């Protein structure tokens, strides 16, 4: 049962969050969205049905960590990656490519390190950077079909550098520059923020930027996001970006500030919600009845 859907409904950030929290392994593939001309019905909202076309990109995970990513049609081989990062000149890359045609990336890395072309650290950092570049690019996509196959793993010849997803999620969200998207997710700056129930666990091993720390230090159900922005001298977009990143990483949650609850209730002239007068024994009778059906 692969998890599948469309980025229209479920963003890459949310997917990564899911994979991270559930500690999943497998390969997440993104496809070109093929329009069908058919109308799809979501209650009273209608939209065109989009189906999976050609593969566009893929990311692989092991136990909730990112280990590999590729864009279809992009050369992600070790030589290209080192070349792009300036660790190998074009000439060196060309020669090595010729000589090492049938060598796997792993074997090649050993050869290059032994021959003092590059250090082990170079290899690790370059591969990691390449993987992250792919992922960050992909995070701006918003209407591609996707599928997570938990039994598909990258082939063993590739060098896999496990990367913690928390930081990828925060950094990725930071890079989602589209203000429109941010506005859509966070339309109301009059909401407040609170920490999740187990903040210690969530914050463990996470690196926050200075900006993020400044926002985090004001998190309190009494402070609206707008007030936090003001206190920190941040623009609406800046605060949206930070709050969105923190929220997607599960570090803060949105709540209504106390004043707003009252205002909303007042607006609608709603009576305070009344608890039905039901006794334990009644509930127990219902339980017995349902058990016996």
């Amino acid at each position, binding site marked *: 049962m692969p998890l599948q859907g469309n980025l229209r409904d479920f963003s890459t950030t949310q997917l990564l969050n899911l994979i991270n929290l559930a500690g999943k392994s497998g390969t997440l593939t993104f496809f070109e969205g093929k329009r069908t001309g058919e109308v799809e019905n979501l209650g*009273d909202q209608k939209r065109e049905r989009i189906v999976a076309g050609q593969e566009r990109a893929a990311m692989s995970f092991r136990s909730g960590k990112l280990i590999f990513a590729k864009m279809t049609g992009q050369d992600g081989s070790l030589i290209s990656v080192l070349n792009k990062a300036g660790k190998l000149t074009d000439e060196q890359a060309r020669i090595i490519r010729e000589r090492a045609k049938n060598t796997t990336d792993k074997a090649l890395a050993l050869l290059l390190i032994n021959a003092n072309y590059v250090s082990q650290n170079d290899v690790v950092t370059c591969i990691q950077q390449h993987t992250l570049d792919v992922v960050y690019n992909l995070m701006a996509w918003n209407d591609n079909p996707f599928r997570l196959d938990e039994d598909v793993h990258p082939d063993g010849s590739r060098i896999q550098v496990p990367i913690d997803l928390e930081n990828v999620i925060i950094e990725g969200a930071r890079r989602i520059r589209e203000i429109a998207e941010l506005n859509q997710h966070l339309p109301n700056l009059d909401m407040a923020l609170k920490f999740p129930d187990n903040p210690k666990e969530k914050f463990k091993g996470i690196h926050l930027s200075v900006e993020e720390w400044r926002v985090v230090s004001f998190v309190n159900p009494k402070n609206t996001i707008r007030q936090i922005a003001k206190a920190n001298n941040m623009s609406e977009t800046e605060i949206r970006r930070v709050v969105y990143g923190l929220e997607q990483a599960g570090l803060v949650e949105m709540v209504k500030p106390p004043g707003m609850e009252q205002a909303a209730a007042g607006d609608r002239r709603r009576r305070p919600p009344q608890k039905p007068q039901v006794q334990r024994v*009644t509930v127990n009778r*219902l339980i017995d*009845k349902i058990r016996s059906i």
Partner: protein
Amino acid sequence: MQTVKMVITGPFSAGKTEFIRSISEIEVVSTEQNISTDAEKKEKEQTTVAMDFGRITVDDDLVLYLFGTPGQRRFDFMWEILAEGMLGFVVMVDSAKPETFREAKSILETFRAYAPTPYVVAANKQDHPDAWSADDLRIALRIEEGVKLLPCVAKDKESVKGVLLELLYSILEEMDAG
């Protein structure tokens, strides 16, 4: 005679009517309307426009009513009316339709705001090959640890019974706590 009620809510086509049908002792009084356009028909034939109404009689002086909300937003004026005085509610989610998860979460929040009653989330259509597991749904919908998220097949009476019982247990627990 005492009557108590529970509300079954969730997005369009989540399986609310099916759920009530599986357990109600009376033919469900449904305000279903035939779906007009071909595109919508692909999905299913009928949709609920005002509410579904099911009944479970315990004895001469206790009756449980099950109200199913209409899934479509244009009927959401009915929601608050149905929520009035409910003992608890079930949020049904079509586990095979991630495009409806956001809506499900929003409905959940709306009902939570109506009344501070216990609720459970039913990960419905678990028999569907594309169904997301209950664990994955919990993360996707960001359901807090303390809230029950139950695998469900609304067509199966035993499964429906299980969901209602879990809700009743939560109601008991809340009474004990409060």
